[in-house]
């Protein structure tokens, strides 16, 4: 069962919230919408759910044009960032509510609620009211309600954003398993690149109402189509710099240059933008991180397992992220090492020319 957006756009007054978008979602694994707040994730989901009508274009589901089919008739479930439960109903009744509306028989309801509750570890809590639950349990209840009705399309809009860090980690691990043996299309919106990576599946990077790239999550992380997609899919923010290719060398400044290996030999001489992920700049050299650079240390963040060094080189601020503890004095000059084999090169139109 696949969901297809054909040239779908959404304008509200003079503002364009979603530019004409073509997208075919997969029904194996998660479809992740990755972008900052206001990049259009929620609007896209509302269009997919039928809660909003597109200004132009068509939405097809399972081979049928559903553009004008109301939400109630689409068999869609949605879970929001702010967990929504009926406060005056028990957890059981909350989970059962979509089945009651659909007129499912009583004993069938009990069976299905019990099964979902077990999956989400809500079994012992079924008699409680949502108010007597922790945040994580409340969001589990909302998830259970979305799962219980066997929807064809499940939309999860930043479902973990309001949870504690550790709970988020736990549910993020559980979620893909919950949907693994269901035949439904799952869409998951997040602002966090690390979350997109760990959930796997496919990812669409969003920026200002436009999908900049869509593909297998790991692949688009390692092959961003353009500079914008690389920026959207990078946490900490990707380092960028203007470089010049002349003959068989790239140079970033008078002091910093590196050979254009065989992969890059075919590129025309001239200016490029290079994108360097923070974990490809390291405090000590290794087999591939060998290009020394020098900068003034601005801030260091040592978390116990990793070191994040913010430093100034030229007029720009750079970030290095490495495993282990590497202490630097603030204000001091530091030497770090770049891994040129992992650079992204973008051309004048900001599209990827080599990686």
């Amino acid at each position, binding site marked *: 069962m696949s969901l297809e957006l054909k040239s779908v756009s959404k304008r509200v007054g003079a503002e364009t919230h979603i530019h004409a978008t073509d997208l075919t979602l997969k029904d194996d694994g998660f479809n992740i919408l990755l972008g*900052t*707040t206001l990049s259009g994730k929620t609007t896209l989901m509302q269009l997919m759910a039928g809660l909003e009508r597109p200004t132009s274009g068509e939405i097809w589901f399972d081979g049928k044009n559903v553009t004008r089919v109301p939400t109630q008739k689409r068999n869609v479930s949605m879970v929001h960032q702010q967990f929504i439960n009926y406060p005056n109903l028990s957890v059981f009744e909350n989970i059962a509510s979509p089945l009651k509306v659909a007129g499912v028989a009583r004993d069938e309801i009990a069976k299905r609620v019990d099964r979902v509750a077990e999956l989400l570890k809500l079994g012992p809590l079924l008699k409680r009211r949502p108010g007597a639950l*922790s*945040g994580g349990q409340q969001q589990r209840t909302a998830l259970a309600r979305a799962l219980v009705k066997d929807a064809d399309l499940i939309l999860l809009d930043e479902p973990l954003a309001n949870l*504690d*860090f*550790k*709970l988020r*980690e736990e549910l993020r691990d559980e979620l893909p398993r919950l949907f693994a043996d269901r035949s439904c299309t799952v869409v998951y919106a997040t*602002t*966090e*690149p*690390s979350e997109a*990576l*760990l959930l*796997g599946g496919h990812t669409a990077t969003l920026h200002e109402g436009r999908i900049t790239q869509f593909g297998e*999550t*790991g692949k688009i*992380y390692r092959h961003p189509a353009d500079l914008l997609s690389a920026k959207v899919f*990078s*946490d*900490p*923010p990707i380092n960028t710099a203007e470089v010049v290719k002349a003959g068989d060398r790239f140079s970033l400044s008078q002091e910093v240059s590196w050979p254009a290996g065989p992969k890059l030999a075919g590129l025309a001489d001239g200016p490029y933008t290079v994108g360097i*992920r923070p*974990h490809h700049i390291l405090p000590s050299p290794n087999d*591939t991180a060998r290009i020394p650079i020098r900068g003034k240390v*601005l*801030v260091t*963040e*040592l*978390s*116990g*397992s990793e070191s*994040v060094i*913010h430093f100034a080189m030229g007029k720009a601020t750079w*970030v290095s*992220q490495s*495993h282990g*503890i590497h202490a630097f004095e*603030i204000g001091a000059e530091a030497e770090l090492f770049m891994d040129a084999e992992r650079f992204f090169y973008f051309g004048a139109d900001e599209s990827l020319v080599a990686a």
Partner: protein
Amino acid sequence: MSEIVLKDLRHSYVPAPKDDADWALKQVDVRWSDGGAYALLGPSGCGKTTLLNIISGLLTPTEGQVFFGTRDVTHEPPEQRNIAQVFQFPVVYDTMTVYDNLAFPLRNRGVPAADVDAQVRQIAEMLDLEDGLFKRAAGLTADGKQKISLGRGLVRSDVNVIMFDEPLTVIDPHLKWQLRSKLKELHHEVGSTMIYVTHDQTEALTFADQVVVMYEGTVVQIGTPVELFERPKHTFVGHFIGSPGMNVLPCQLEGGVPQVGGQPVPLGNGPVEAPAGARLELGVRPEFVTFADEGLPVQVVKVSDAGRHSIVETRLAGNRVMLLVREGESLPSESARLSFDPAHTQVYADGWMIA
């Protein structure tokens, strides 16, 4: 500015507390020196907000005392304590300009206009707020407003302590990086005592020189990020800090050597002695587990791509063991053997580290 001492603090929201569960804070003794950067870290409901409210004077503790320097402030109201506080959601007057918002805490205390101007401009410069200084705050984005909230917290130079209560929760990840490092930089420049309350280990560990980890109303460990990472004194700290957290495996001792699933696991230091009848566990972080030619036999269950490393889930005699494998390194497919770094493998008795 002064040292902050929390002495034998206990707090209950119940009028006549009887058993342990009645105490929101069971026992807290902490000494924070002047000018330090500290974090209170723990899950929802661990008592960190209760503790924060006791320091700020919004709550009077059931037992114990709070000292600012040698002054006992336990019964002083918040306005006499001379502290600044930044909350989870921006506290900004929309109708005022950015300048007036920043000036508000100073004018409120009758600071002369010339001093107000100097301090506001200094803070605005540090936070890069100079450009829109005379524009109304209403038009700003969430992070822009939160920057003003931070500025309002930082603008007074005479406060005893600045407290931050989950200040970056509502901020998108890429801006979180900026604000977090900005805050760190500001601590370096301003030199005030700062206490940062959060459930997010990354924020706590990167901001603070010393972190207080709380769990169910008690302080389980106080230490530097490196100490908490490398020598977690309690399995809770091992689990809560780190992503994924420490592997905790049931074990037995034979001749002072811990055994997991019938296999010996050598430690860095000599034979281990455990109290009779104690529940024994072995703790080792995913960062200190590697694939090896010889060692503990495991099955590889799942590999998640986290970008700069893969998180590999394995099973060792029915227990889950996670490890990190760096980007670009090869992975075994099914059966494999693991080695634990002896210097970073701990033994716990009833949750507490004994070796």
